[in-house]
Every structure is written in structure tokens, then in C-alpha cells.
């Protein structure tokens, strides 16, 4: 059952990713990405990471992607132009990117196949919280600064010409 | 008073002088010049004290000063002089006031910067000559590039920027590899201190494999060879000289080039004797090519300054030959020739500069018949040319003779070929002289050129006096350089140093000591 589910979700995720690349319109791409994310949320569930799965749906698919779509709408972005100035990207970059991906897949598969899978405890959310707020307290606090910076950035960059009044 | 800090004072007095100059108002040209001159003269007088404080019987370093400086790696502020550097320091302090006076009238723009550069240059060059720490040596070696760069680049002639950059890049290419060499040496010996390294090598505590020694030698030698400049690394020189202002040329030819030959004598030979021996034939060949080549190329120059520049290539070829003949006589000659070249070529550049001040050109075609409007200048020009071509009783001869003679004792063929250069030097100098000064005045604008002014005359007299003095009274100098130079070769002794031929043959007449002629001669000498 889980195997079937895995392959189904994996197929959706990959299909979504490919669609993200192939879609001409940014909105379609964004929707494809949301599909990927949702599929991934499912996979997280399969992996027993309920909390992450929820966060994935709420924060990622919910908040971040909404932001994307909002911006796309705001800017009224149309279909992608068919310009291709970069030979480097087309003839060198893409093949190599494919090779990189394939290489990663090969080596990861090659290495990981024999490693044991360890069953997890019933619910990981509580220990997760302990971990986050004890061992990883420092980076957690740090993220507040990160978010502060992001807010500051959004304010600085997106504010209307106010500084020059 | 003792002279224990004399070297530091010598290094830092010009630095202080240049700082003081910076405080003056930029448009107060008179006082800028006066202050610069005063500083450089004070420096010169102080440097003369070196002669008194120097013990000529002592071959090793004297008046040493050593302070800890950089902790890691251990670098000391270590100064000292020996017979090799003594007169080079004095040459520097002598040429600086002369360069200042030579540019008294000809520099009217950015006067302050000019004299600051000259004084910093002086400090840098003196630093090179008195440093006994390789790091410190390198530091001064590089430092003096900058003022020279500015001197050429700011106050030079049309193609000054090309020349300035070429000069710096050429030199830097060599010196950066020398830095690699210095550090490598440090890694092998654990010290930057020259005496310490020498001691380590002498005692055999540190032994280089042949290849390492060759590479190290190469790293040092390349830097020096570029500076000298040795054929075929010389092409920066004509450009630098042609474009430099008079004072720049005087300093460049007078002392900067000597840093190269000094380095060979100071580092290449004592530190890497085996490599030096191995490569000496090749180097000597280059030196000889340089002698002849430089002379022949000077012969056909149309630019007076370029001509003198190429003649430097020829003269410095003699010096290098003298150093790599591995003969104390030749090396002494080389050292002497360094001083000579500084004086003679410095004076030549000064004279060319005086012509330039009047006509703003160096083209020989633009001159012609100048002896008529300016007899005094013409006379001095001839005098200096004669010194440069090695007329006996003038300084150039002593050096050339010692070099060739010493070289001949070791490597007859080298000396024979090199001596052809003596013929050529007469060719190009006198021909140029003829075209410049003899004949009718060819251009009307040359007809009314003023002869040497009082300032110029006093400068020329001073140079002439030194030329004559050095031509006549060479032992006053060579006796002080003797023991140090000898020590260089003593340190190389463990490698092959063939016995001079005459020492073997000398025994011959002694067998017939009772022959009448011999007795006769002895008697005559006894009286």
C-alpha cells in the first residue's frame, strides 16, 4: 500500500516538476509547483513526519506559493518570451545539469540502497519540539532575525518613493 | 659620538626629509628645493662619516644594528655594511644632491612631489644596500620602485607612461620570483638573516641539493639580471631612461642598476656558490653579448639619451662579467666599475638633461655644432664621455682594466672578446659627440643657446673632480673594498677556484735569481 502510494506521489511530484519546467505561463508553473508540494506533503506523511507535512501544506503551499501567485498577478506576467541569448545555458548548462541530476541519482541510489531504515516513534512532534527549542534554540532564535531582515527588505524595496519626500 | 645608529639615520633621514617636505606649501618651490637639497647634503655628509667609522681590515659586516621586528616568521631589522656596500651607499648619497641640483630649474610642476619622490628613492636605495635581512632587503628593493615609477610617469616625456609601467612590471616580475626564492631559502634555513644563513651554509648545517640550489640561484639571479639589466632582459632600460626626467635617469643609471649587480655579489655568489659556478659560463656569455650588443646598438641610436641608456647595458655587462669571473681582481673591478658607471653615466645623463632643458629634445639630429654656442658644456661632455669610454687616469679605466685583467687571468677568451667592447665604446661615444657638438651649428635655434650656468658649472666641476679623483686615487677605495670582496670568494673556496697561472709561473724567474738582470731589477726596486 505505502509502496503504491509512494510511487503515485512520486510520479505526481515528478510530473509536477516537469510541468513546472514546461509550462509557458508562470501561473501554470506556480500551480505545478503547488502540486509538487502537496505531493511532497503526502510523502512526508509516508515518512512519518506529520508536523513537517502540515507545515509544508500551510507554509509552503499555502503562504509562499500564494505570495508567488499574488506577485505574478500583480505584475500581470504573461507567457514566457522565446528569447535565447545564452548559448552557454542551452548547450552547456542544460546537458550538464541533466548529467548532474543523473549523477546525483546514480550515486545516491548506489549508496543508499543497503542502508537500513529505522522505524520511528509513534508521534514525532513532541520530540521534534524538544529538539527545536533545546538543541536548536540558537538557530531558531536566529530565524527571527532572518525574518526581521526579510520584512525590512520587503519594506525597503517595495515601499513607494517615500524617502524622497 | 659613536656611529652605532648611523645606518638607521642614513635610511630614515631622507624619509624624514620627505615628510618635512610634505608639510611645506606646495607652491613654495624655492623652499622645497632648498629643503630637499639641505636634507640630501646632510645625508651625504653623514654618509662620509661611514668611511671613518669603517674598518677596512674587517671583511665582515660592520656598524650592525639588529632589532627584532616581525615575530612570525622571525624577521629582524638588521642593518650593516661591508666593503661591498660602503661606497654604494656613498654613491647614492652623492648622486641624490646632484640629481636634486640637476633638476633645480627643469622641474616646475608638482615640485613637492618630485623631491619627495627623490628622497624616498634615496632612502629605499640606501636601505637595499645596508639591509642584512633578506626580508628587509626585499622590502626596500620593492619600495624604491614606486618613487621611480612616479618620477618616470609624472615628470617624464611623451611615452612616459608606457615606460613607467614597463619598468615596474619588468622589475616586479623578477623581484616577485626573488621573494619566492627568499621564502624558499627561509624554509630551508629557518632564517631571513643574511649572516645567519651564510653561517649555516658555511658550516654545512644546511646543504642544498644541486637542483634546489640552481633554482634558488635562478630566482635571485633573475631579479638581479633584470635590474642590471643583463642581455636579453634589458629592453625596459632604454625606454625608462629615454622617458625619465634627468634626475630620474641619474638615479636610475647611477644607483638603481647597481642594486642588481650588488645583489649578485651579495647573494648569488656567497649563498649559492655551486650554482654560480655551474651557470657562470652562460652568464658570462650573456654579459659579453651585452657588452658588445649594447655598444653596437648605442652606435646607431638617434636619440642621445637612448644612446647613453644602451651604453649602460654595455657597461653593466662588464660589471657582471667581472663578478662572474670568480676572481678577486675582477670582482673588485666590478665593484669599482659600479661606482664609475654611477658617476660617469650619471654625469652623462645630467649633461643630456642640460641639453634637454635648452632644446626639449634628445634627438641628435636636432643638435649639431653645439660646441660653438656652449663651449663649457661641450668640454665637460667630452670629459665625461672620455671617462665613460675608459680613458686612463679617469675612473672608467680603472674598473674596466681590473675587470678585464681579472677575467683574463681566469678565462682568457672571455676577456679577449669583452675587450672588443672597449673599442666600440670609443666608437659610439665619440661619434655621438661629433654629431652633437662638432661642426657648424646646423639649426638656427641652436645658435644662441646659453652655455652652462653657474649652478650647472658647479655640478659639472664636482662630477669632473670625482671622475678624476677616482681615476687617479683608486686605492683609497679599493683598499676598503678589498677584504670584503676577498671574503666573498673565500666563502666560495670550497668549490673549485683555480690557481692563477702566474702564481705557478712566478716561480720560474726565482730560479734564476742570480742572473744579472734580476739582481739589477731588484736593486732598482730597492731604491
Amino acid at each position, binding site marked *: 500500500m505505502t509502496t503504491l502510494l509512494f510511487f503515485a506521489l512520486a510520479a505526481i511530484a515528478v510530473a509536477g516538476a516537469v510541468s513546472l*519546467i514546461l509550462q509557458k505561463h508562470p501561473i501554470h508553473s506556480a500551480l505545478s509547483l503547488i502540486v509538487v508540494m502537496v505531493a511532497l506533503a503526502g510523502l512526508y506523511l509516508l515518512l512519518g513526519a506529520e508536523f513537517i507535512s502540515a507545515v509544508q501544506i500551510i507554509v509552503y503551499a499555502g503562504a509562499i506559493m500564494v505570495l508567488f501567485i499574488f506577485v505574478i498577478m500583480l505584475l500581470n506576467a504573461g507567457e514566457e518570451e522565446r528569447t535565447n541569448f545564452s548559448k552557454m545555458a542551452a548547450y552547456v548548462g542544460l546537458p550538464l545539469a541533466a548529467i548532474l541530476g543523473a549523477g546525483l541519482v546514480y550515486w545516491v541510489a548506489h549508496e543508499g540502497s543497503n542502508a537500513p531504515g529505522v522505524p520511528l516513534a509513534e508521534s514525532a512532534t513532541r520530540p521534534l519540539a524538544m529538539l527545536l527549542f533545546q538543541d536548536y534554540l540558537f538557530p531558531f532564535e536566529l530565524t527571527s532575525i532572518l525574518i526581521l531582515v526579510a520584512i525590512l527588505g520587503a519594506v525597503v524595496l517595495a515601499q513607494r518613493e517615500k524617502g524622497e519626500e | 659620538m659613536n656611529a652605532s645608529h648611523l645606518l638607521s639615520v642614513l635610511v630614515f633621514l631622507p624619509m624624514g626629509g620627505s615628510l618635512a617636505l610634505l608639510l611645506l606649501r606646495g607652491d613654495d618651490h624655492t623652499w622645497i628645493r632648498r629643503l630637499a637639497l639641505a636634507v640630501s647634503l646632510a645625508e651625504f655628509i653623514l654618509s662620509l662619516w661611514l668611511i671613518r667609522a669603517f674598518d677596512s681590515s674587517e671583511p665582515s659586516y660592520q656598524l650592525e644594528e639588529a632589532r627584532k621586528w616581525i615575530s612570525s616568521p622571525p624577521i629582524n631589522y638588521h642593518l650593516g655594511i661591508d666593503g661591498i656596500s660602503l661606497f654604494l651607499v656613498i654613491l647614492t648619497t652623492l648622486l641624490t644632491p646632484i640629481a636634486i641640483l640637476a633638476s633645480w630649474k627643469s622641474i616646475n610642476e608638482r615640485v613637492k612631489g618630485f623631491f619627495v619622490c627623490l628622497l624616498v628613492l634615496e632612502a629605499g636605495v640606501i636601505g637595499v644596500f645596508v639591509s642584512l635581512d633578506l626580508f628587509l632587503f626585499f622590502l626596500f628593493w620593492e619600495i624604491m620602485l614606486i618613487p621611480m615609477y612616479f618620477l618616470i610617469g609624472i615628470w617624464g616625456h611623451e611615452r612616459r607612461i608606457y615606460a613607467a609601467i614597463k619598468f615596474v612590471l619588468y622589475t616586479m616580475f623578477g623581484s616577485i620570483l626573488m621573494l619566492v626564492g627568499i621564502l624558499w631559502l627561509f624554509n630551508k634555513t629557518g632564517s631571513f638573516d643574511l649572516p645567519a644563513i651564510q653561517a649555516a651554509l658555511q658550516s654545512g648545517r644546511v646543504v642544498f641539493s644541486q637542483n634546489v640550489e640552481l633554482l634558488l640561484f635562478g630566482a635571485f639571479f633573475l631579479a638581479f639580471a633584470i635590474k642590471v639589466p643583463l642581455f636579453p632582459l634589458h629592453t625596459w632600460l632604454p625606454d625608462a631612461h629615454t622617458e625619465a626626467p634627468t634626475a630620474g635617469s641619474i638615479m636610475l643609471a647611477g644607483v638603481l642598476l647597481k642594486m642588481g649587480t650588488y645583489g649578485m655579489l651579495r647573494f648569488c655568489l656567497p649563498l649559492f656558490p655551486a650554482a654560480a659556478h655551474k651557470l657562470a659560463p652562460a652568464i658570462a656569455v650573456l654579459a659579453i653579448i651585452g657588452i658588445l650588443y649594447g655598444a653596437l646598438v648605442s652606435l646607431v641610436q638617434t636619440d642621445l639619451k637612448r644612446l647613453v641608456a644602451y651604453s649602460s647595458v654595455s657597461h653593466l655587462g662588464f660589471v657582471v662579467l667581472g663578478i662572474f669571473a670568480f676572481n678577486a681582481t675582477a670582482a673588485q673591478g666590478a665593484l669599482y666599475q659600479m661606482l664609475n658607471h654611477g658617476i660617469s653615466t650619471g654625469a652623462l645623463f645630467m649633461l643630456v638633461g642640460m641639453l634637454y632643458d635648452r632644446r626639449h629634445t634628445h634627438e641628435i639630429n636636432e643638435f649639431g655644432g653645439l660646441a660653438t654656442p656652449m663651449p663649457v658644456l661641450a668640454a665637460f661632455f667630452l670629459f665625461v664621455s672620455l671617462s665613460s669610454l675608459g680613458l686612463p687616469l679617469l675612473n672608467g679605466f680603472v674598473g674596466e682594466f681590473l675587470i678585464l685583467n681579472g677575467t683574463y687571468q681566469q678565462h682568457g677568451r672571455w676577456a679577449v672578446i669583452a675587450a672588443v667592447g672597449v673599442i666600440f665604446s670609443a666608437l659610439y661615444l665619440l661619434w655621438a659627440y661629433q654629431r652633437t657638438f662638432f661642426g657648424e651649428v646646423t639649426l638656427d635655434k641652436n645658435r644662441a643657446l646659453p652655455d652652462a650656468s653657474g649652478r650647472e658649472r658647479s655640478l659639472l666641476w664636482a662630477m669632473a673632480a670625482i671622475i678624476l679623483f677616482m681615476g687617479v686615487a683608486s686605492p683609497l677605495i679599493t683598499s676598503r673594498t678589498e677584504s670584503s670582496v676577498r671574503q666573498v670568494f673565500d666563502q666560495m673556496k670550497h668549490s673549485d677556484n683555480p690557481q692563477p697561472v702566474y702564481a705557478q709561473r712566478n716561480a720560474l724567474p726565482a730560479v734564476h735569481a742570480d742572473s744579472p738582470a734580476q739582481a739589477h731589477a731588484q736593486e732598482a726596486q730597492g731604491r
Partner: protein
Amino acid sequence: MVPFSYYVVLSAVLFGLGVIGFLFKRNIITMFMSIELMLNAVNLAFVAFSRALGQLQGQVFVFFVIVVAAAEAAVGLAIVILIARNRKSLNIERVDLLKL
């Protein structure tokens, strides 16, 4: 039970697709989305490894990645808006004032 390495392989595939997407797309926003795809791939890898190792750290890391992604999105989209406002184009290849 699917071996956890399948997940890792999937993450590698997604990462590779992200890279390809970044190179392939010309629309700035889509390129940015490709990066998000790569980050998602990373997350999947973290979770998978976390599972494989029997540790929870991996999941904590995912949390951080998501936060960073959010922050990047905020700032990145702000920059995109600026560009769109100043250039009237979202084509990355038209943004080449600075070169050589």
C-alpha cells in the same frame, strides 16, 4: 515499506529538475520557483535521511529551510517587483545592463 533510498532518489530527481528548470526558464519568477523546487528536494532528502537515521534532526532542518525559503521569497519577490517596475519585463535575458 519503500526503502528510504527511494525517497532520496526522488529528491535527487527533483533537485536535478530544479537545476534544469533554473537553466531552462527565462521568466524570473519561474526561475525562482525552480529554486523553490530545489529546496523542496532538499527537504525531502532531509526527511528521508532523518527517517533512515532514526533521528529527528533532519526534520528540524526542514523547518529551517522552510523559514529561509519564506524569507527568500519575500525579499526575492520584492526584488522581482522592483525589476518589473524599472524594466517592464520579467525576462531574465533582458536584464543585462551589467556585463563584460
